[in-house]
């Protein structure tokens, strides 16, 4: 796992604040109810920070952010380098 993926996992654990819950790169987050739609923006902003990319609106669906692995794959697919 990359250092960025680990940082994302730490960020998510901090965000959900649920004692006893552990997650890895492939844990479903949205479809398991751990992350609600109002927290998706926190994940996207963190993803933009970690990848130094801009992820355009309209190109990303919640299912693209369901796991940490999918988040980084999505950034690689639709991310644009920062102007």
């Amino acid at each position: 796992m990359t250092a960025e993926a680990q940082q994302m996992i730490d960020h998510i654990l901090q965000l959900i604040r649920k004692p006893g819950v552990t997650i890895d790169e492939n844990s479903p987050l949205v479809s398991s109810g751990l992350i609600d739609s109002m927290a998706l923006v926190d994940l996207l902003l963190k993803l933009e920070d970690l990848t130094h990319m801009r992820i355009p609106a309209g190109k990303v669906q919640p299912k693209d952010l369901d796991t940490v692995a999918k988040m980084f794959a999505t950034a690689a697919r639709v991310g644009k380098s920062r102007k």
Partner: protein
Amino acid sequence: MLRYRNLIGALDAAPAGRRFLTSWIDEDEQQTLTFGEFRSRARAQAAVLRSHGLTAGDRVVIIMPQGIPAMTVFVGAMMLGAVPTFLAYPNFKVESAKYRSGLAGVTANLSASAVVIDDEFPDDMLGSVTLSNQTRLLRAGSGGDTRDEDAFKTEIHPVIRQDDLAFIQHSAGTTGLQKGVALTHAAVLRQLEHLAYALQIDPAADRVYSWLPLYHDMGLIACFILPMVCHIPVVMQSPLDWVMHPETMLQIIGEHKCTLAWMPNFAFQFTPRRSPQKRWSQYDLSSLRAVVNCSEPVRASSMREFQKAFAAAGLKDEALHSSYAMAENVFAVTQSDPVRGPAHIWADGPQFRSAHRIVPVAEGTAGAVAFVSSGRLLPNLEVRIVSSGSALGGSVLGDGSVGEILVKSDCLFTGYYNRPDLTAQALIDGWYHTGDLGFHLDGELYVVGRKKDLLIVGGENIYPQDVEELVASHSAVHDGRVVALGVYNPDLGTDDIVVVAELESEELLANAVEIEAEIRSRVVAGMGVAVRTIFLKPPKWIVKSTAGKPARSSTREKLLREHPELNVDD
């Protein structure tokens, strides 16, 4: 507005070359239609629907992604005299079996003649969808072509009378306990007449921005039908694109010089908190003349936060507005004065909480509660505040007393479609019992909470019964011993869903983490919404009513007593 025969007559009167709809995907991808182009596409959709045998009075359920094709199908159906309704597009989190049974229930209640979906509609959500024999499933492609439009023109147009149903609005995005609010052309036109007057709509200068879903009254009426009838442009994006990138709202308003926007309360906090502060001043919100806080109780702190954050982007203080709206009245009951804005008052806390009376005090007085009004009544609207408690409805209360809000108007709904039982409970002697609590003071209406068991999460209506049923389906949970509550989350500016569930035995508490995770995924799979906190309790914890059912309000009080971390000053 009242000069038009019906909503289609209003659309027909729009100047063909004027901009109507802009669908904003991102800065590289936008599509704009003029009123003339929109009309052509809607006529083409009408011709397609007619070729499938649809005719006046037929109910048409539309389940398509937010965008121009969905809107042209909706108007195309109305052109035939048919009665369209939007349902929420299935969310990837929802289990297909659950979705299918909900959809079957809604279409059966409407005796729908057709369900219209898009080409990308997920197959598993459809599967063996159990639609009745009389319901056809139609795929709307990119939406007809000009030959279809020509075909429509040569056919005889249906006569659409003022008192015919125009469309049906559903009360919640999920397909569980649905109530379809049936509205006539006349009711919608009268509402828009009142609203356009109250907001001083100017077709030459106004432009609406919206991220609101079309199945909800704010998105459908204020941000689609009002612009269509008043001939003003709208720039819209999908709710999901907005919630994932709230900052795009600032970008769109600035780029398109929008003047009007409607949003639920939480968006007034969510937008500044989830848009990087370093970029606030790059945007230009100076074109906004009214951003209307609507549908949830209006909170002074949320309004202030939005105003302070975006003053740097040129947002005018006087652009902050409020309204109290509901599908049953087509839309708005009140609107704040376009010049003076909503009234702000401070009231004595203990008097409000225990005596349900508003005693104004000076700003900042210790223990005082701040209220923002929802504005003044629209013309031809009447409101009564009645004491709740007695089953037959209480007595009418005067200024400054908190009670249930009753509404009477010339634009009320005719009833919940095919549900005379629910209609009879809500519409009594011409008064619609809103289930909301509020008070009148100096000509302004204030909405302070809800009497009805409805959770409003991020502007979305959620019936606690739907959540409770899903939680109770877990084998470790005692059947029927579940309560779902909305608890205010001051960080988000909206309610969180909190669930209290009794387990079958005390020993099961040892598996709490696992059971919680399973409950969480069941609720997501069933409804697409996330539960914030789950409290698993030993048997007999939930307070029961005399009828043996869980008593929501007493259980809530007990929960807040035992878990003081949930107590927030709202």
